């Protein structure tokens, strides 16, 4: 659970750390789906940590836009953003599709594609983290490298 109000190394590093953790948790889910590809009745599970991460940032109001005034709780607020929700992604089970007659709905091609894209995402996050730490080192040593 990320607390984005206290940021020792900057918000970007904290965010990237949560993203790397989410990629690891999603990788566990994908590995579990692949391991159970021949299990009768198994349902695919997935972890939508990206939207949870997005929600944890909240949606700050646009400073250039005028927020619509409301005088009743039943009116929908417009233009004043949404509050951040705590980051806590939970795995969800896909019950909608069926791939095989034994009740399993693991689509192995889809899982392999997700495995590949998740690994690429994690590598990107890792590279960005390295860049962030490089900035910090440059700032602390006053030595560009």
């Amino acid at each position, binding site marked *: 659970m990320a607390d984005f109000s206290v940021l020792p190394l900057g918000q970007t590093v904290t965010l990237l750390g949560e993203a*790397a953790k989410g*990629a*690891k*948790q999603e*990788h*566990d*889910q*994908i*590995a*579990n789906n*692949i*391991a*159970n*590809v*021949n*299990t*009768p*009745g*198994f*349902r695919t*599970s997935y972890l939508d940590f990206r939207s949870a991460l997005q929600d944890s940032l909240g949606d700050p109001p646009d400073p250039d836009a005028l927020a619509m005034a409301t005088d009743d709780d039943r009116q929908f607020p417009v233009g004043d953003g949404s509050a951040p929700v705590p980051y806590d992604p*939970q*795995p*969800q*089970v896909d*019950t909608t599709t*069926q791939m095989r007659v*034994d*009740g399993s709905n693991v689509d*192995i091609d889809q*899982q*392999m594609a997700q*495995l*590949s894209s*998740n*690994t690429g995402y*994690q*590598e990107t996050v*890792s*590279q960005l*983290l*390295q*860049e962030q*730490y*490089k900035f910090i*080192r440059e700032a602390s040593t006053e030595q560009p490298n």
Partner: protein
Amino acid sequence: MGYYDSVEISASGLSAERLAMDVIANNIANANTTRTPQGGAFKRQLVIFAQKPAAPDGSDQVGSQASDDPFAPPNPFDPSSSEPANVEGVQALGIQDDPTPDRLVFEPNNPEADARGYVHYPNVEIVKEMVDLMAASRAYQANVAAITASQNMGNNDLSILKS
């Protein structure tokens, strides 16, 4: 959640698929076996896969198993269950005999023939076994690919230290 969970999950898939391939190889090897210690022709064997039950004290596991039977597969054939799956891998619950009847071949001169002249051959179909073998082999490869991806992700994390 440990760092090597995903490797262990994939490793459980590897051993399960390897067991399936062993059983299939045994079925093919005994495709014409008419005598067994149990008597009668060889019976085709099937591996029963199930999701591994969650550890009882797993604090980060969602939806713990209520069943007391450790061999009870979680949520078997229950498509309505929307409980989040535990990331625990797969296990082979056991090996069962295929209940389909023996293949009867009329060979009156065969010493194994019964009173009506029929020989009871195993209910093994080679083509079906080959298809199952191919599926198990491909699933094995998929698990190997998942382990390779785990390794790459670990290397990426370690390279953060080098920056």
